[in-house]
């Protein structure tokens, strides 16, 4: 337990939720980028619906994740980490959580403002919190897009930091979030 290893890893639930949400966000983000340039077609209407269904589903997983996070503190960061890096790491994680909540909510509001209600899997209608309003819809679309691009930049930093911990710091910050990887084997 030398060379800067932290104690313990994330719970299996936290690891599973992290990767489910990560995969969901990657999928919904890519779909969002692709679909909004398409000309109107049945395919476009389908993709928009799938994107919204995915957004609602991810949002629910994020809520479960937040509840889990609140009741299961993550393992501490490696003792060798400088204070400024800890501050940045915490700030980045909090921002990511904030965006995980804000992005689906802006998508939902934008759907209402544009006059297309969100009906989860075509079965569960979400209430329209806003009336149809073209200007507001366009503004929310811009907000949704900006938050997404911000998140993309933060995710790239997040991944870069994890790789940096693994390759340069040689600690277990990445390994403890990877499934199927035994903590004890990371002893380079």
């Amino acid at each position: 337990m030398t060379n800067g290893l932290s104690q313990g890893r994330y719970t299996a639930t936290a690891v599973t939720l992290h990767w489910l949400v990560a995969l969901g966000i990657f999928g919904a983000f890519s779909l969002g980028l692709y679909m909004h340039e398409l000309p109107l077609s049945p395919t476009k209407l389908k993709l928009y619906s799938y994107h919204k269904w995915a957004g609602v589903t991810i949002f629910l997983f994020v809520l479960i994740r937040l509840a889990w996070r609140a009741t299961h503190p993550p393992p501490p960061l490696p003792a060798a980490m400088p204070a400024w890096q800890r501050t940045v790491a915490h700030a980045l994680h909090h921002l990511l959580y904030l965006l995980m909540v804000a992005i689906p909510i802006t998508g939902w509001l934008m759907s209402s403002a544009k006059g297309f209600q969100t009906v989860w899997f075509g079965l569960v209608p979400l209430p329209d919190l806003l009336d149809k309003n073209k200007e507001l819809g366009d503004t929310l679309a811009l907000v949704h897009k900006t938050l997404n691009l911000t998140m993309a930049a933060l995710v790239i930093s997040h991944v870069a930091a994890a790789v940096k911990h693994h390759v340069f710091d040689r600690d277990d910050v990445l390994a403890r979030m990877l499934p199927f990887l035994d903590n004890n084997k990371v002893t380079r």
Partner: protein
Amino acid sequence: MTRFAAILLAGFMFAGIAGAAELGPIQADKSRLAFVSKQMGVPVEGEFRKFAVQMSFDPAKPEAGKAQIEIDMASIDAGSAEANEEVVGKNWFNVKQFPKASFVSSSVKALGGNKFEVAGKLTIRDKTRDVAAPFTMAQQGANAQFEGTFTIKRADFGIGQGAWADFDTVANEVQIKFKFVAAAKK
């Protein structure tokens, strides 16, 4: 005296029938012709902004009622800018070739209370179909308000062809909602 009463009564009756039966032009700002389609299970509302209605209706003699509606298809608002561009095209309403849609009533019957049903021929594009629409009539001051909802199948009229022909994205059933407000002629 008896004769005077009879004349008076006849006068009232005539005024009553004429007042209720003859309706002025509908008031565009209070009237509405809307439709709700289901896209991927999501109800989406649209409307026609320009339409002309000619009606005569007396709730005491509903079977004599008549209605003729002409809809300016280019006035469609399908709910979004890109939908508006799409629906005037060949696959949907083909507005260039079929600028008007129309409804001509053939019969009206009472359903009890202030409820009635009008049957008639609805023509959209080059297709004419028999439709029936229940409606209510309400007196609002000097105005009469007619309001009703009925459902048509878009495939019956060839609305939504090509890639849109199957119903898994846009459902076949389309709800039509109308509200016509007309001044009773004095």
